[in-house]
């Protein structure tokens, strides 16, 4: 233990989890990294050990002891249901898996720190929401569906663990929508459709967290002593309509009564995952306060929401119908035409007068 922290990462096969493991491998103060997942990780990992197990399996508890783990990064809370798993299965893995993991942590005396990657979906999405959610101010109407509810329950279990074991540092990070060149998210799939479906008459306010920042902040909390509850998002806010324009794509507004039917069609076609709770998010959006992240945790995100989105568009090579360069060129050409055209005598005369 003197050599450094011994870290257990759940869901190691995921993109983000792999990146976190790679980042931790670079550090001297991390002695060992153990990854747990049911799938084989595909990333380049040098000294990370891999345990193939489901979180509900008692193997995880034994691993904590045999590998002498003192830091648990629970990063496998699924915020969307990819590869067509049903909602019930996702919930089972999210909630029961976390319960078992935290129960094992409570039994393991050497565990000193537990970090949970949660989501801002716990705040729900409602028209009566405050403009910006702080960590303490809960939602007006607690979210009752989808991954938001899972996350609320899992956070509750972790808090219970914190109460039972006062010596364990508990850190909960609520991430806004993750975007980046490698990490997939439910939001990303919206922009892979030919047109971006939106809800007619609504324009959600969005915040993004770049994957580099997500990795950076997870690395920070794994090695630094600042327990607590933090929102993680880039500076600034974007509207969905603005995202569509920044990407040069075209929005397809769907009237509110048809939204769930259209979402069902998209889901069945398997091209994008639009769970029902995501639809409400597409109506009202959500913005969180990140003051605490910057001031108390001391982590300043490198990407603003807009930079994160622009980087995502660029790296993923999302090509729009409208090229931004084209529009800028049209404007320049119009300006040049106005200046040079002989049809505007006053303008040309003014040009001559100027030295």
């Amino acid at each position, binding site marked *: 233990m003197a050599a450094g922290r011994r870290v257990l990462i759940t869901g190691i096969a995921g993109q983000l989890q792999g990146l976190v493991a790679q980042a931790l491998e670079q550090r001297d103060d991390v002695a060992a990294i153990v990854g747990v997942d049911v799938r084989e990780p595909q990333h380049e990992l040098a000294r990370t050990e891999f345990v193939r197990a489901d979180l509900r399996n008692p193997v995880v508890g034994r691993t904590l002891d045999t590998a002498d783990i003192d830091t648990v990064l629970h990063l496998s809370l699924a915020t969307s249901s990819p590869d067509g798993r049903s909602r019930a299965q996702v919930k089972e893995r999210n909630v029961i898996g976390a319960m078992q993991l935290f129960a094992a942590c409570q039994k393991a005396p050497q565990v000193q720190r537990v970090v949970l990657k949660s989501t801002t979906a716990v705040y729900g999405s409602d028209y009566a929401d405050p*403009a910006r959610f702080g960590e303490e101010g809960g939602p007006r109407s607690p979210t009752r569906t989808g991954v938001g509810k899972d996350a609320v329950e899992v956070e509750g279990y972790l808090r219970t663990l914190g109460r039972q074991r006062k010596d364990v540092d508990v850190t909960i990070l609520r991430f806004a929508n993750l975007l980046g060149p490698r990490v997939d998210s439910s939001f990303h799939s919206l922009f892979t459709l030919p047109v971006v479906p939106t809800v007619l*008459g609504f324009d959600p306010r969005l915040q993004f967290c770049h994957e580099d920042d997500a990795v950076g902040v997870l690395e920070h909390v794994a090695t630094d002593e600042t327990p607590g509850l933090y929102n993680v998002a880039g500076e600034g806010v974007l509207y969905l309509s*603005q995202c*569509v324009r920044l990407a040069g794509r075209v929005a397809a507004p769907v009237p509110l009564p048809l939204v769930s039917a259209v979402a069902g069609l998209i889901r069945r076609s398997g091209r994008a995952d639009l769970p029902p709770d995501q639809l409400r998010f597409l109506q009202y959006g959500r913005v969180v306060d990140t003051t605490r992240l910057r001031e108390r945790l001391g982590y300043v995100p490198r990407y603003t929401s807009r930079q994160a989105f622009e980087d995502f568009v660029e790296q993923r090579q999302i090509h729009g119908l409208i090229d931004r360069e084209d529009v800028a060129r049209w404007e320049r050409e119009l300006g040049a035409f106005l200046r040079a055209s002989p049809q505007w005598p006053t303008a040309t005369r003014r040009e001559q007068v100027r030295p």
Partner: protein
Amino acid sequence: MSGTAEQHAEVISIAEQRAARDARVAASRVGASDRPRCEALTVAGRPCRNYAVSDGRCRVHAERETAPRADTVTAPERPAADRPTSIGARSGGPARDAARKAAVERLAPERRGVPGGRPESDRADAAFARAERELTRRGFGAAIDGVELLRDAADERWLEALRGMASVVRRRITGDYDVDEYGFDEDLTTNLMMPLLRPLHRHYWRVTSHGVHNIPATGGALLVANHAGTLPADALITRLDVFDRTGRHARELGADLVFRTPFIGEWARKTGATLASGDDADRLLEAGELVAVWPEGYKGLGKPWRDRYKLQRFGRGGFVATALRAEAPIVPTAIVGSEEIYPLLFDLRLLARLLDLPYAPVVAQLFTLPLLGPFALLPLPSKWVIEYGEPMESMEDAQEIADDPMAVFDLTDQVRATIQGMLHRNLMGRRSVFL
């Protein structure tokens, strides 16, 4: 006139009646009537018929003499011939004249700077001036702005405007604009909403406003105003007026119904409104923003015609507590004219309850629906006056008072009484609903 009437008294009897009426009018002007009239002369050289408000002068003339402000009185009096014969046709005249003069002066040095002069441009100017005079005389305020636009078209400014528009279009297409955390899209508000509202403000409701100097130029302040007119047009027009006069965007606090409604909610957020909840208002004021509230809410908007200009309950006084916590001054604001845009005759309560709306109005215009078709749904072109009152400064122990419900109630009543008083004063000074 009365002299000629006396001479021909026995010939034309109708003149006799006229003379008698004139005498009555004169008597009332001297003070026979219980309400004194204004002593000043109008621009057309007639005695002003407005009721006097202070110092024997009406609101319009009192403002002119006592408080010379750049926006009301910079321009010297024009020759009487140039003046409109009917005052009502071009209200807000002095302010507009001043603005136009200033615009001409801005252009003038550039013109002189051109070597060899610009005779054709001078001729054009003369022609424009002639046309303008003629139109002013007939009272076509809107047409004059068209003429101004044409005049600008012959100059660099028009091209600048075109380039500006191209830049706005480019920003809108490529998403190159910033939005704050409340969802306020300043680019959209300044370049799209305000220009769309401006004709309504200038030509349809012909808004005049007093006391803009009462709005602090910087720092947090809470603008509190009355709310009326079935649809919240007064909120939009007040925002535009504040923006045009001070360059500040007033951030509205809206009811949750607004943000639930498609399109309206989206538009409200983008133009700077946010939910009327304590947290949002507190943070806006602390950030030094100008915040506007209409504390009557739906009770004010949907009140029947017989209750016009009677302030309803001011919410629960939450806005006062908010201002106290942020130690921000409260600017009481009275809007006269908004009540008459949609006179609400009946409220179909049952229908409102079925549709889950705060009220289901039957406005006066609806009865002309068979006659005018869709035009019947237009708001009435009442004449608006907005007055920004003396700011009520925050007190020393504001933080403590904010937690004392009784003190908050008292202050709420005080603000309400102030606005009610301002409303009455402006109503007294008003000549008619539409002029």
